[in-house]
C-alpha cells in the first residue's frame, strides 16, 4: 500500500504582510507539479535549500494546508476531504519544538495524549519509555520546557509524536541545530522506530549524512519542484562528482547544504 500518493500538487501564497483589507499582491509559488508515490514502510527524504518548499509539503501532508490543485492521499485518505482520518494516522516533528514552554514535559505530553483521546496513565508510561530510550534524564520530566536544552526539547517532541503511534511520521528537520550527540541520539532513534514500529517516515533535512544514513529514497526540491528523485547512492553516483550526496546536492541546487544548516540554526 502507498503511504503517500501525491499527484501534481501545487501551492502558492501571497507575500507575508498582506491583509484581507489591502490590495492583493501577486502570489508566490511554493510548490509546483509535485508528484510522487511513497510505499508503506519507506523512509523518504526531502532535501532542498531554504524556501524551496519542504515545510509547505510537510504541512500539506499533515492537513495544515490545503493544496491549490492536485491530490494528496495518505494511506488512501485524501488530505482535503478526509482530514480527520489522515490526522489519526500521522504525527509531525518540526524544526521548532513547539510547546507550552512554561509547562513541563509531562504536562505537554498529557495535553497531546488527551487531544488524541489517549488514556493519561497509559500515555504517561509510554512517554516515559520513549524518553528513557532517547536518554532524557527522568529529573527533567517535570521541569518546564523552557529550562531544557534544544536537544532535550526535541526529544520531548519526538516522544509527543510517537505517543500516538503514528503510521506515518513526518520529520521536518528534526536534528537542525542540535549538538552532535543529540543528533546521533535522534538519528539512532529514527532507525529504531523504523525497525520496531514499522512506521513510514518522511524526513526533511539539510544534513546529507543523515539523509544517506536514514533514507531509502531522496527527492531534491528546488523552487517548489522536484528536480531529482532516487536512492541516495544513485543520486550521488549520477550527480555527486565523487563528493557523495553533498556533491549531488551542490550540483543540483547550486547551494552548499552546510550554509543552509547554519542559516536555519
Amino acid at each position: 500500500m502507498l503511504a503517500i500518493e501525491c499527484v501534481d500538487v501545487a501551492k502558492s501564497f501571497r507575500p507575508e504582510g498582506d491583509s484581507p483589507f489591502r490590495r492583493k499582491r501577486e502570489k508566490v509559488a511554493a510548490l509546483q507539479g509535485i508528484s510522487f508515490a511513497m510505499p508503506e514502510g519507506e523512509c523518504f527524504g526531502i532535501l532542498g535549500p531554504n524556501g524551496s518548499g519542504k515545510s509547505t509539503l510537510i504541512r500539506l501532508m499533515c492537513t495544515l494546508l490545503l493544496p491549490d490543485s492536485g491530490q494528496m492521499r495518505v494511506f488512501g485518505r485524501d488530505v482535503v476531504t478526509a482530514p480527520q482520518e489522515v490526522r489519526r494516522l500521522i504525527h509531525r516533528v518540526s524544526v521548532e519544538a513547539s510547546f507550552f514552554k512554561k509547562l513541563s514535559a509531562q504536562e505537554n505530553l498529557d495535553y497531546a495524549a488527551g487531544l488524541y483521546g489517549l488514556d493519561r496513565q497509559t500515555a504517561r508510561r509510554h512517554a516515559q519509555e520513549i524518553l528513557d530510550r532517547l536518554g532524557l534524564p527522568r529529573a527533567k520530566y517535570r521541569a518546564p520546557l523552557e529550562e531544557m536544552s534544544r536537544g532535550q526539547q526535541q526529544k520531548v517532541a519526538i516522544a509527543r509524536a510517537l505517543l500516538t503511534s503514528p503510521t506515518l511520521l513526518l520529520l521536518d528537520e528534526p536534528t537542525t541545530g542540535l549538538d552532535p550527540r543529540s543528533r546521533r541520539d535522534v538519528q539512532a532513534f529514527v532507525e529504531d522506530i523504523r525497525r520496531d514500529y514499522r512506521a513510514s517516515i518522511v524526513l526533511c533535512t539539510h544534513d546529507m549524512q543523515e539523509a544517506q544514513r536514514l533514507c531509502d529514497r531522496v527527492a531534491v526540491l528546488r523552487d517548489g519542484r522536484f528536480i531529482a528523485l532516487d536512492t541516495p547512492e544513485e543520486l550521488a553516483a549520477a550527480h555527486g562528482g565523487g563528493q557523495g550526496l553533498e556533491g549531488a546536492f551542490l550540483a543540483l541546487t547550486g547551494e552548499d547544504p552546510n550554509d543552509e544548516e547554519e542559516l536555519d540554526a
Partner: protein
Amino acid sequence: MISLRSEGRAMGAVISRNFSLIRRYLGWEVVFAFYNAVNALTIALIGLAEPGPGQGERVLYLAIGALLWNFLSVLFFEISNSVMWERWEGTIEYSFMAPVRRITYLLGVCAYAVVYGLARTLVVLLGIFLLFHLPLAHADIGGALLVLAAASLPFIGLGLLGAIMPMLSAERGAQATQVIQGVLLLVSGIYYPISVLPHWLQTVAWFSPATYTLTAVRQAVLQGTAPGALLATVLGLLGAGLILVPIGVWAFHIAERYALRTGKLKRNG
C-alpha cells in the same frame, strides 16, 4: 462510544492544560486578580462620593457593573484569545492537526473560560463584600444568577466570533478582539444607564447582550424583581446565545479553512 470517550478526553485535555498554565503563571494570576478587585473597588467607591440617600444603591449599581463586566469580559477574552495564545506559544499547528473535532476543542476552551471567569469574579466579589456594606435585603440573588447563566451563552458566541480574528490576521486579529471588547464596555451600560450615551451609540447598545444582562441583574438585585418577571430577558439571552454560538462555530470553521488555504495558521503567518 469510544469516539465519545476520546472527545471527552480531548476536551478535558484543553481544560487541564489551561489550569496547568494558570499554575505556572501563578504570580501573574495573583496580580490580575488583585488589579481586578482594586479596579472594581475604586469604581464602587465612586458611589460613595456623593453623600445622602441612595448612596448604598449607587454603590451596588456600580458594583454590579464591575462584577458582571469582570465575568463577561474574562469569558470573552479567554475564548477570543485562545487561538492567539496558541499562536504565541507556537502550539497551534499541533493542536489543530490532532484528530479532535473542532467543536470539542472549542467546548474545552469555553468550559475553562466559564470556570475561570467565575473564579476571578468570586475574588472581586469577596473584595467588595469586605469593603462595603451592601443593601441586599431585597435582592433576588437567584434571579440575578439565572440571568448571568443565560448571558454566558451569547458571550461565548461573541468570544468564538472574536477567536476567528487572529486566524485571519495574526497581529491585527488580536488588536480587533480588544476593540470589540472596548466597544462592548462603552455601549453596554456597565457603569451608567445607556440613556446617557449619544443616540447613535444607544442604537449600538441594543445589539450588545451585556446591555440586557445588566438591566435584568440590576432589576433583580436593586429592586428584587422575581425570576418570573425576568423570564423574557432570560429567554432573549438564551435565544441570542442559540444564534450566536452556532454562528461562532460556523465562522470559526470558515476562518480555519481560510487559514489552511492561505497558510496563516503557522506561527508567524
